[in-house]
């Protein structure tokens, strides 16, 4: 058995060796399990954009890209296996799309010198690049999201004395915003109720019964996968007003609201990038990727919220790779060079327009001290009759007076625990 396995592994490595010269962007995807509804469109968007770069521009700086995909099933054990099996291929950056796997990979990838980009998820305090040298979570993180939701609600009216319920996935991911919301509730005088939902989130009757009883003025949700659909359906069942129900960006895709039908009309979700397929880049994707028969997956996700997010993640990775190529003067970059590129990344409106994504996301710069970007958060709303999300509030800043001390505190604790020296000069 061992011999057989050994020969198989050797054969697999040999089969993979022609792609060694490419720029490798492993995609730790999940197309199975209770979180597949979120994993599929993201992985498709990520792969399609890299395919587009290969077909249209001949790769990045003349070097072709490759996106080896590895199925994690949102499971941390498989995530470790995927990380170990792909890192030998010259992986430039990991985007595991799972907070649990991100937590796992932070120490490993830092020791291996490979950057992680956890865009809008992962460990929020990784925004402090001084401590987390190899982890990036620009352009926005969970705490920006929590604060953005509260800011939006405050723009609708005073929050003092109001009740806000947080329905969250009972995991590292869902627990992230609690501390921020608690601080904000002290600052603005609203009452916070915490309602955890256990994995995978199909059972939420008791949580929504409590919401029905306590009648909170607003409900904020940090859900993912099948939990989102169930929550929107339950909210509709108890006739909770959808306008008062706000999801984080991971709870705001078409998959989450479509099952509830018309009842989901008016449901709101945060976002940190543009929605819809009204961008020039989609014509290119149609022409170079879909018509060429290279669309990832079933090819039916193009233009959905999470597809766009995968596309955005790929775009940011490609731009960081370009930046790295410029800094180091070589097209064939390594993971360490990629890290430098990510740290020097500048996204301007002119750049996005040139890529066919005008106004798709906020402009921002990454620096050594700030790996988290500006934390600008927009608000979208679901229109059930047109079946579209629309941006109802422009990208607005979040309350960094509350968030920055929390980031500093949490990252300082991590640095002390793991004896990490300051990495910024």
């Amino acid at each position, binding site marked *: *058995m061992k011999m057989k*396995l050994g020969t*198989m*592994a050797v*054969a*697999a490595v040999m*089969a*993979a060796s022609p792609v060694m010269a490419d720029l490798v962007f492993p995609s730790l*995807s999940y*197309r*199975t399990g209770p979180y*597949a509804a979120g994993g*599929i469109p993201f992985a498709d968007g990520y792969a399609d954009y890299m395919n587009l770069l290969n077909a249209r521009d001949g790769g990045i700086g003349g070097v072709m890209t490759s996106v080896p*995909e*590895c*199925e994690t*099933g949102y*499971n*941390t*054990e*498989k995530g*470790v*296996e995927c990380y*170990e*099996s792909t*890192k*030998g291929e010259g992986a430039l950056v990991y985007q595991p799309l799972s*907070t*649990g796997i991100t*937590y*796992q990979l932070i*120490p*490993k990838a*830092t*020791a291996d010198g490979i950057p992680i980009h956890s865009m809008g998820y992962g*460990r929020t305090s990784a925004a402090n690049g001084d401590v987390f040298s190899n982890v990036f979570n620009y352009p926005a993180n969970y705490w920006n999201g929590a604060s953005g939701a509260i800011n939006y609600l405050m723009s609708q009216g005073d929050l003092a004395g109001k009740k806000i319920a947080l329905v969250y996935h*009972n*995991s*590292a*991911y869902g*627990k*992230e915003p*609690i*501390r921020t919301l608690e601080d904000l509730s002290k600052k603005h005088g609203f009452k916070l109720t915490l309602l*955890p939902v*256990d*994995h995978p989130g199909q059972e939420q009757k008791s949580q929504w019964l409590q919401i029905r009883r306590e009648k909170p003025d607003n409900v904020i949700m940090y859900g993912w996968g099948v939990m989102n659909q169930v929550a929107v359906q339950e909210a509709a069942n108890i006739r909770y007003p959808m306008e008062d129900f706000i999801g984080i960006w991971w709870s705001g895709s078409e998959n989450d609201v479509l099952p509830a039908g018309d009842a989901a009309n008016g449901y709101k979700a945060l976002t940190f990038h543009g929605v819809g397929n009204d961008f020039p880049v989609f014509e290119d994707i149609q022409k170079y990727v879909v018509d060429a028969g290279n669309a990832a*997956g079933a090819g039916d996700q193009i233009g959905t919220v999470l597809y766009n997010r995968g596309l955005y993640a790929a775009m940011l990775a490609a731009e960081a790779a370009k930046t790295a190529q410029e800094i180091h003067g070589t097209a064939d970059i390594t993971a360490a060079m990629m890290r430098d590129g990510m740290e020097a990344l500048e996204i301007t409106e002119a750049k996005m327009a040139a890529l066919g994504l005008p106004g798709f996301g906020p402009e921002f710069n990454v620096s050594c001290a700030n790996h988290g970007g500006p934390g600008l958060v927009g608000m979208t709303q679901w229109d059930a009759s047109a079946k579209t999300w629309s941006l109802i509030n422009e990208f607005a800043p979040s309350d960094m007076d509350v968030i920055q001390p929390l980031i500093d505190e*949490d990252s300082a604790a991590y640095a002390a*625990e*793991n004896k990490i020296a300051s990495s910024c000069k």
Partner: protein
Amino acid sequence: MFYREAGDFSTSYPEDSQTFPIRFDRYRYYLVLFVAIFVIPFTINDYWVNSIFLPFLIYAIAAIGLNILVGYCGQVSLGTGGFMAVGAYACYKLMTSFPEVSMLIHVLIAGLITAGVGVLFGLPSLRIKGFYLAVATLAAQFFLVWLFNRVPWFYNYSASGQISAPERTVFGIEVTGPNTEAWATYLFCLAFVIVSAVIARNLTRGAFGRKWMAIRDMDIAAEIIGVNPLMAKLSAFAVSSFFIGISGALFFAVYLGAVEVGEAFGITKSFTVLFMIIIGGLGSIFGSFAGAAFLVVLPVVLKLVGVDWLGWPTDIVAHLQLVIVGALIVIFLIAEPHGLAQLWRVAKEKLRLWPFPH
């Protein structure tokens, strides 16, 4: 022809009652040990350790533990994930409270703590059995996971509720944290596996094991011939939980490095270990290893063949794995209830008679 006891004479009782009475078997066992200790550590890299060897070794300990309870003592348990979580959280609390103490001690104490918890949850087994006991242990599974999620003391009040293993050493060599060497973690786990297997094998051959098997085969008859069911059942729960606790501690500290209780130690973990001993063979130490190896290696092989060779989409391969494992469980339960271990035994019998089976 090659594999036979002819010419193999025992001249003393210990020789006659040793674990591997046939010389060929014994040499094979020494060879496996030699390869595992002196060859593999020099040849493995991160990928082999983290994808195959560590999960195999750690699951093997868990499977040995569960096999003692289910296979030898006949007490069906679905609480394996919960008990592994006890081991992991006990290890975490010990690691963070006493950073200067060797990991070896932490893991052992974590096992002892789990043994205590296991005895506690084993108490209902004195009154209920079979299907109802399975439900009671299922309650333990859910209660323990809920407890570790609910009480912040267990995860040192971290914001995310995750526990992550800081760097700790054994004899000055790092075995946890990100900067470990592949061989160090491998040998650390291997040491636990070898000691666990030897202890388990000898326990099940001795008076304890006979009492457990008597209880398994017919508890009333066992009581009549003088087996104390209280002692037998609770000792089975204690020993089983001890091993499961050790595997949970290693699973968290050495293998994953950071865990989230609901995700890493959920009900699926209990079923995975149960499937391991069903496929491997109930009531067999070798079966625990075979089952663990099978369920750890199968997904990796499927991925190598399906994704890397044949270029199939990753989701098809992932689904295929579920289908294959499910089908195998059904097939084994129908065709070979004693699992891979029985196939191995039959093969050995055939080999002994070969080439003249009559």
